[in-house]
């Protein structure tokens, strides 16, 4: 048990040291420039173009004046020379949009914080307390990760109704952790395993309780893991749709994804501008968050798969 962390750390350092830093050229000199253009740059730019085009289109639509939206022949559809912020103005001042944004943020932050607290405790207990049956519980939590919301929403709707939580943000704050806890526990277990066991042994000998060890030794060392888990959970909450669609009813309580689909979609032919503005404004907070924490996000995503 004691030699385990050492071997883990070793593995981590090997994995973390980019094998290509010292020979960044690699074998790429074997390929001529034209060959690289055909086999690498052209396919890559096509894929990246397709992946990013919908966002360009979303942004462009949201700033186009109405008449240009539906007249593709007089104006070039790919660009606009007279952008307007009318759609955003309508969004911010003539709809519940700020309210929806606030709801989404509130639910996402509360659910994420709750889940992270629960997962830290659970992951620490599974990895370090190693109580009887810890491995079994770890396996069960992994299985819980594989239970998708789309088979749970019907019974959950009746449960939510019984508890009197229907149409309140509390319904989402309490149900989202079922999606987040399995994932973040699994991720944090991986991080806690890399923290040397000796540190905890020292603290135990000095008379620290498990609680103190967790707060003063393990958590400060696991901050990158906590950030990863937080970012990923927050994104998942923001993205969640089916629970929010089922459990919320009144217009002002809705979250952004549900509200846009239900409230903005009407027969109006000019709706596209405000619809796309809404979609863009709903995505931007996540994209900005992601831009600051790319590495953490990627390590959360790949860490969960690797563990």
């Amino acid at each position, binding site marked *: 048990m004691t030699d385990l962390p050492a071997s883990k750390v070793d593995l981590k350092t090997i994995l973390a040291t980019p*094998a*290509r830093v010292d020979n960044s050229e*690699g*074998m790429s000199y*074997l390929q001529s420039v034209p060959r690289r253009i055909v086999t*690498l*740059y052209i*396919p*890559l730019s096509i*894929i*990246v173009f397709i*992946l*990013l085009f*919908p*966002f360009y*289109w979303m942004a462009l639509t949201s700033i186009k004046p109405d008449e240009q*939206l*539906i007249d593709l022949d007089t104006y070039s559809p790919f660009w606009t020379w007279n952008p307007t912020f009318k759609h955003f103005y309508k969004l911010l001042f003539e709809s519940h949009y700020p309210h929806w944004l606030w709801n989404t943020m509130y639910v996402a932050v509360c659910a994420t914080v709750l889940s992270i*607290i*629960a997962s830290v405790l*659970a992951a620490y*207990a599974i990895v370090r307390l190693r109580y*009887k049956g810890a491995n079994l519980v770890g396996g069960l*939590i992994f299985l*819980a990760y594989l*239970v*998708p919301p*789309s*088979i749970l929403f*019907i*019974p959950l709707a*009746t*449960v939510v109704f019984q508890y009197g939580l229907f149409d309140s943000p509390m319904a989402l704050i*309490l*149900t989202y952790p079922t999606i987040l*806890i*399995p994932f973040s526990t699994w991720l944090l277990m991986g991080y806690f*395993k890399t923290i040397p066991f000796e540190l905890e042994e020292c603290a*135990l*000998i000095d008379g620290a309780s*498990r609680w103190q060890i967790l707060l003063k030794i393990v958590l400060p060392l696991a901050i990158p893991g906590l950030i990863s888990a937080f970012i990923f959970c927050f*994104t998942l909450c*923001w*993205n969640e749709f*089916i629970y929010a669609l089922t459990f919320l009813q009144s217009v002002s309580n809705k979250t*952004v994804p549900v509200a*846009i*689909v239900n409230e903005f979609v009407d027969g109006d032919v000019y709706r596209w501008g405000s*619809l*796309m503005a809404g*979609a*863009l404004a709903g*995505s931007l907070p*996540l*994209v900005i968050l*992601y831009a600051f924490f*790319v590495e953490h996000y*990627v390590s959360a*995503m790949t860490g969960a*798969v690797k563990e």
Partner: protein
Amino acid sequence: MADIALAPEKAKPKLREATSWDQLKHNKNWLGIWFMLPAMAFLVLFLAYPLGLGIWLSFTDTKIGRVGQFIAFENYEWLWDDGIFWLSIFNTLLYTFLASAIKFAIGLYLALLLNENMPFKAMLRAMVLVPFIVPTVLSALAFWWIFDSQFSIISWSLRHLGLISQNINFLGDTTWARVCVIFANIWRGVPFVAITLLAGLQTVSPSLYEAATLDGATRWQNFRYITYPLLTPIIAVVMTFSVLFTFTDFQLIWAMTRGGPVNATHLMATLSYQRAIIAGQLGEGAAISSAMIPFLLAAIMVSWFGLQRRKWQQGESND
């Protein structure tokens, strides 16, 4: 561990006997229960219990606002004769199979491309993941607009290139609607597959390729005999997740087509929502979503054996 912890307790100047409370405080199992309590409370109350309740509901004729009676397999018998239900199973399998296979192929290809040395590598990787970050519903709305029957930019471009003479009715035609939702799903899933596989690729030592190239291996042989075998375990896990989430997809379809036209894009998840929440037949909806469980179990088995194999390959006996 517990006895190490107790030693200083006894050496204290007070020379107090360790009470049973002290012993309990350091008992691993006792502490474990308290540490597990919050997570378990959530998972039991809002995951395990509803899972069982869902299966129970599928055997009753519960409607919204009315407690149901136990009717055994009547819901399932009813669904057995329901053409739309079978159509939704067919759609789900088609959707899952096509989308997952193409996601895997493009994702692996993209991962291999991103693994090459090139300028702005980090930025490209960050950009590739953006479709995965943006909430699915919001990007689905963008696709809804791109696939609009009158003002679609794709129709416009193809018309101006002279390839078609009139607009394609993307989401109004059954075949086109299926193609469009599958395309949107692939678009969203490729970044996930690519970035996770890329993480796997980066653990493959370049010296293996160098050795193989010295021995005269071609690029295809490098891929087939080095990359692919070393990547198999991670592929198994990534694809299980991908299949699982594609199979139970709801939001993309709901935002783009709501199951239409003529139920051509109804998946089991969307059909169960329509029957249970919109039509109010909770029992029948629960039966449809319970019918997904066997498929999910199959996917989990694949994942399990994938993980087992990985441990065996890395020579790890314990974790």
